[in-house]
């Protein structure tokens, strides 16, 4: 789980990048709290070969990354 709430670009992507490079996870959940970070993490994860499902939870967004 990467909790990137409160961080603005590029920090959420950097946190996800670190999690992906360190652990090569099959599944990764990411929490962000703004649309820009949602778009950026989605784009980065897609480029790294992950399928991304996102849902809004109140003011936050939960992204579920699954390795294709």
């Amino acid at each position, binding site marked *: 789980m990467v909790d990137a709430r409160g961080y603005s670009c590029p*920090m959420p*992507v950097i946190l996800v990048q670190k999690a992906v490079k360190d652990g090569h996870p099959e599944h990764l959940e990411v929490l962000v709290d*703004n649309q820009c970070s949602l778009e950026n993490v989605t784009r980065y994860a897609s480029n790294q070969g992950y399928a991304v499902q996102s849902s809004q939870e109140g003011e936050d967004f939960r992204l579920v990354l699954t390795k294709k």
Partner: protein
Amino acid sequence: MTKKINPWVIVTGVAFGVAALLLAHFGNPGNMGFCIACFLRDISGALGLHSAGVVQYFRPEIVGLVLGAMVMALCTKEFKSKGGSAPATRFLLGAFVMVGALMFLGCPMRAVIRLGGGDLNALVGIVGFAAGILVGALFLKGGFSLKRAYNQTKLEGFILPGLLAVLFVLSLAIPALFRRSEEGPGSMAAPWVLALICGLVVGALAQRSRMCMAGGIRDVILFRDFNLISGPANLFVTVLIGNLILKKFNLGFEGQPVAHTDGLWNFLGMALAGWGCVLLGGCPLRQLILTGEGNSDSAVTVLGMLFGAALCHNFGLASSAAGPTLNGKIAVAVGFVVMLLVSMLNSAKKEG
């Protein structure tokens, strides 16, 4: 490498370029249809924060950019009052970004606009900007962070946009309250209605697309992501084509409008600005757009840039067409020390 490019980024780059051509054609200084650093400096002068008589005008473009972004963010429900991520540090960084930009004579977007007009000094500046971003990006990879922001009261996000709007209306209603250049770049301006409309349109588009010069270069370096950089790339192509059509393209180093030819200090000034921008998370344009989205950390950064612009002219730090000043060179050197300290002191320590 990212293949997906958000079409909004391309639209924003083209619209920014068209607006820049229009504004320069209708009265703004040459290759200065838009320049966030120059226009904040002009506003700083209009408010009497500095007394350089040639750069004082309450630029409607800045007001338009912030309010355009705010309206778009409200429409898309992205307006959120947030702040509390190292505001004093951001103020300081904003001030030194301005020191670097006014050494070069332009923000990163103006550097692209200058290059589209054939000004090769801008190419030196852009290479310097990229070098500064590379250094900052290394610190980002090493754990640099200004820590998280928190939700604020709704009012917080409206303060600076509201203040700018009120001051702008005042500048129209009671112009005697403000200073206004009678000669020099500050006296050269497109009609205020056109300037405001261009600002509003570009501000709204930049909010949708997140266009950012610093973010564009940073994303290429860190993530091999070419989405954001496609904005400035399209801005360049648009301005280049426009200048060729208007027969304003003038390739070379010498005789460029509101520019100097000192390559070393063009490089170093923009390197300082680039380093500062990547630590701040965005270029001066992006700081204005985020201010419009309710981000009070960016609002503090904009205030820091206004403060920096005042210091630049009160202390003789800003360059002119004649070249950089000794005071300006010292300030840029001090700026690099500040960037290094801020970068190191905000980097996560390795876990032992």
